[in-house]
């Protein structure tokens, strides 16, 4: 697992209070991990802070699963 992937998972476990084993690449924040729309906004903000990136709203909308977050951050973080 890449460094980025493990950091992303750690943030999700902490913010959503879910078990690490639930945080699979396919897991959807809202459908599988119990997040509501505000939780999702908070997650995106945490990713921005942790990885020092700015995620535009139109791209944030496409980040719905753990795997999508990891892919986006691997491609865009500095």
């Amino acid at each position, binding site marked *: 697992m890449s460094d980025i992937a493990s950091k992303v998972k750690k943030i999700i476990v902490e*913010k*959503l*209070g879910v078990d690490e084993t639930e945080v699979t690449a396919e897991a959807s924040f809202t459908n599988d991990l119990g997040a509501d729309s*505000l939780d999702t*906004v*908070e997650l995106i*903000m945490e990713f*921005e*802070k942790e990885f020092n990136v*700015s995620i535009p709203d139109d791209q944030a909308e496409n980040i719905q699963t753990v795997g999508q977050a990891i892919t986006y951050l691997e491609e865009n973080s500095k």
Partner: protein
Amino acid sequence: MTLKRVVVTGLGALTPIGNTVEEFWNGLSNGVSGCDFITRFDATNFKTRFACEVKNFEVTDFIPRQDARKMDLFTQFGVVIADQAIADSGLSDENINKEKVGVIWGSGIGGLKTFEDEMIGFAQGNGTPRFNPFFIPKMIADSVSGQISIKHGFRGPNYVTVSACSSANNAIIDAFNYIRLGRIVACISGGSEATVAQAGVGGFNALKALSERNDDPKTASRPYDRDRDGFVLGEGGGAIVLEEYEHAKARGAKIYCELIGGGFSSDAYHITAPHPEGYGAYLSMKDALEDAQIAPEEVDYINTHGTSTPLGDPQEIKAIEQLFGDHAYKVSISSTKSMTGHLLGGAGAVESVAGILALEHQMVPPTINLDNIDEVIDPRIDLTPNVAKAKKLNVVLSNCFGFGGHNATLIFRKI
């Protein structure tokens, strides 16, 4: 129409002198000070470096972490003590229609620390607004009653009253009125506050409202004492379950006492200073006695607002003398803020719990740190100095006065 009777069937408390109702009463009856140096932030540069904080409170013992982090501390306090009071009352899906249960809470300020944290974060950033999506729902004062109703499924009236240090008494009076009008069957009421933060201490310091007795914090809250120099900030809260009497009786609930009157008034004088003759306090107590339809002589104990400020304390006593006449020298009086500090919007709630427990235990909690009674106060006034006093108690009156000139008084009677 005939008004329904309203009784107290559950209590909760999270205070600087005890994290349960039982611990709170132990603290009150033993004259314990809840004051100590501030641990919630580094207060080195502040004029006041002490407060009455809640001790040993681990929120995750009561609320899952992912829920707790969406609540300011004042809401966490509120949710925990509401749980205590509801459990104590025995209310459940089986014995009450939850659509007829309200949650009416008091908080003078709301999520001050949340506001402070978010603004500091913004100010330290590069100007890009990066506010947490839970900032507003955590901060707003009404979030506490919302969280309590969500947790328990109570679908009756739900809001928070904001009248500074009278907030909880106003909340309890509103709950009382809805139940006696027959609009709801029960209501979770009370109040909570958590302002031991830089903005809270710094703000009250700027008003010159806080004691600055940094060399001896435990004696800083000293209502009616000659050497008092301001109030001590407290935190925590109290919860009471109010229920329509026949409903409580029918389900065999433990009934602590009856809430027989609520009174209120406004000073219409100054935004922070109390009326010099205590006229607002007088009107509030008079209104409560009329509402309760009792004579002043029937009151056995007055839990005063008595914050330990130079101006406020004697004015309340003046108002008591004016309203109660000779009975002012027979009634027991004490300020439990000498032990808990001043919980602001939560004050009326913890002091209601204190008054109800006084009725329950037939004992008047003391005014501690009362070494030399201020000479402007008539020595015949019984301020219950330093030691709790066993006494036959039937009626207890509890006062709250807030910045803005808001005054509110409750009267409880044994049943």
